[in-house]
């Protein structure tokens, strides 16, 4: 019943405003987080059993008639579902305390669940246009969530995000229309088979460029990144965590990867373009992060940089590179989610995001400081945390595939990353306690639970990286490394 991943959050979201009239806090908190917990357990426990025998294709019947609710769950989709559920649950738990002073919690959770439903629908869809539809579902929910605080900064950021996003969507649809025109179909399997027959060359290149423009903007790859450093810091902290940790990866990286690797097939030209874009994002954003004074802005630029690394890894095209890229996608979702949640704890305690105004918070907020250190070291790639292994795999894959220059660039970018994260850690948490903060307290219960959960996962996956890779990452990487065969062979309905 993989349709549950889409339908359950939608149904709960639909009921939430009514429930919100009855119970303003407890029931919405319980229902929303309960749904997310259920989806996480379902994905983590039942998911692997489901895909053990190959991709699960579900064509549902409704009221006795066969309807085209075609969803496909394979290794790659499952990895994304687990990531969405994990970070979604953590941010949901965090919201229990954090969103108290924003008002209308039931409405917030409703939007949040619709965004989750959109992301889940995107990864389960088997049809180019359905990918677009669910991409928009998640996007519309995210516009409102970015603007949720209703302050001037939030509204401005949300508006610019919306404008750029809609232009990206237009290019996506143009590409979809051209592919529809060439192949006469929208389903992944049919399109892949038809494209092989057609030998479309130049026109396919133009369609790919339009897809790259659209998904590149969603993934915030340089030079389409301008919206992210405004949108992610302005959003409430749990939403920043979901946007940076999940949405840019689902709407951007997942969609792009699925279409380029499984439907079009990764040509050497496409591989080079992806690698160059990834490398440029990685380096440029790392430099831009260095100059930031606002904690969340620094984290936002870091997201752009890390997504660049993910795309670089996947762009290599070799099984090892893809595995490294996917592993880093998962690790970054956890770690960046953790860091943004912590920034929310800090913002709530001190009322500011300005790093220069902080200082010595570790003495008053030890748990937050510790989890922040874990998250930072994870993204910077320090052993034995999870980020170290994914970065190592990507660098090894680069060397193995004969791209030593890229490998050196990746290592240098990692050093830069470590540097600016230690800057945050030092300026905000270590050092002398600024008098202003002498009275701050540690973050409330649920916020701490959420961040500790993510931090434990970072450590756990770092230690148990081998089994994590074999059980979760490898099936996903295999699907992608198979290229077009993964879809034409087993996805024909």
């Amino acid at each position, binding site marked *: 019943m993989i349709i549950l991943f889409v339908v359950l959050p939608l149904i709960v979201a639909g009921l939430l405003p009514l429930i919100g009239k009855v119970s303003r806090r407890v029931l919405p908190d319980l229902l929303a987080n309960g749904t997310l917990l259920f989806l996480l357990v379902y994905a983590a426990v039942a998911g692997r059993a489901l895909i053990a025998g190959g991709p699960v294709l579900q064509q549902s019947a409704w009221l006795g008639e066969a309807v085209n609710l075609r969803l496909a769950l394979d290794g790659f989709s499952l990895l994304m579902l687990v990531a969405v559920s994990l970070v979604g649950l953590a941010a949901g738990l965090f919201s229990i305390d954090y969103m108290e002073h*924003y008002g209308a919690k039931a409405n917030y959770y409703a*939007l949040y669940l619709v965004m989750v439903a959109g992301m889940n629908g995107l990864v389960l869809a088997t049809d180019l246009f359905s990918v677009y539809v669910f991409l928009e579902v998640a996007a*519309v929910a995210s516009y409102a969530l970015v603007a949720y605080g209703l302050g001037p900064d939030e509204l401005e950021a949300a508006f610019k995000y919306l404008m750029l996003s809609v232009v990206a969507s237009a290019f996506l649809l143009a590409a979809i229309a051209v592919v529809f025109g*060439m192949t006469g179909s929208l389903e992944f399997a049919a399109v892949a088979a*038809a494209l092989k027959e057609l030998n479309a060359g130049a026109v396919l290149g133009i369609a790919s460029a339009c897809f790259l423009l659209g998904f590149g903007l969603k993934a915030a790859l340089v030079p389409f990144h301008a919206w992210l450093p405004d949108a992610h810091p302005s959003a409430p902290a749990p939403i920043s965590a979901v946007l940076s940790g999940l949405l840019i990866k689902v709407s951007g990286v997942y969609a792009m990867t699925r279409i380029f690797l499984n439907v079009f097939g990764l040509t050497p030209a496409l591989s080079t373009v992806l690698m160059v874009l990834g490398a440029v994002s990685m380096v440029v954003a790392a430099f831009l992060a260095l100059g930031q004074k606002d904690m969340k802005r620094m984290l936002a630029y870091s997201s752009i940089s890390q997504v660049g690394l993910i795309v670089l890894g996947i762009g290599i095209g070799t099984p090892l590179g893809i595995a490294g890229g996917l592993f880093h996608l998962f690790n970054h979702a956890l770690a960046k989610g953790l860091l943004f949640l912590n920034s929310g704890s800090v913002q709530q305690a001190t009322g500011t995001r300005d790093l220069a105004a902080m200082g010595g918070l570790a003495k008053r907020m030890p748990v937050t400081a510790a989890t922040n250190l874990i998250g930072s070291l994870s993204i910077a790639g320090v052993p034995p945390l999870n980020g170290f292994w994914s970065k190592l795999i990507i660098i090894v894959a680069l060397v193995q595939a004969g791209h030593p220059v890229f490998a050196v660039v990746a290592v240098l970018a990692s050093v830069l990353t470590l540097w600016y994260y230690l800057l945050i850690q030092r300026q905000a948490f270590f050092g002398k306690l600024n008098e202003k903060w002498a009275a701050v307290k540690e973050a409330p219960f649920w916020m701490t639970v959420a961040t500790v959960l993510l931090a434990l996962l970072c450590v756990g996956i770092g230690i148990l990286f081998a089994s994590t890779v074999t059980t979760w990452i490898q099936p996903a990487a295999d699907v992608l490394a198979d290229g077009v065969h993964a879809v034409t062979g087993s996805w024909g309905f």
Partner: protein
Amino acid sequence: MVLQTALLIGLVIFSVLAILLKDLLKSAIALAAASLLLGIIFFRMNAPYAGVFEISVVAGLITVLFILTIALTGAGHDVRESKLVNWVFPLVFVAFIVIDALVMKSLLGKVPALPSGTEAGTFGDVLWKGRTLDLVGQIAVILAGVFAVLALFRKRDKHD
């Protein structure tokens, strides 16, 4: 075909007017006129359902939403637009039209396409049974829009 081309030219003209006109209300009406023409173009392409939707939803509902917004943002209409743009826009646009025409002419027959099969079923079948997941998506996006508007217009008792 001649009529269709005339309608298409009208569509482009009204759309450009909608962008260039100074008065917001006239812009909204020009946009509605453009939608009306697009709906008729759809009808003539044997797409009556799309035509009806375009006219009733885009020319109707969306125009109403625009007019509502224009009314609610009363005095904000005097945003001084750049005079330069009013000259540059038509020039660049005409230049693009010329390039567009040349590109399309050179592309004639160049886009490879598989021969198309016949379509089975009625429109109802195609929509309800063929694209059911899209219908779930439609429900989701409508929920997203409704909750977004509710969230953005909610009563604030404390400021963040």
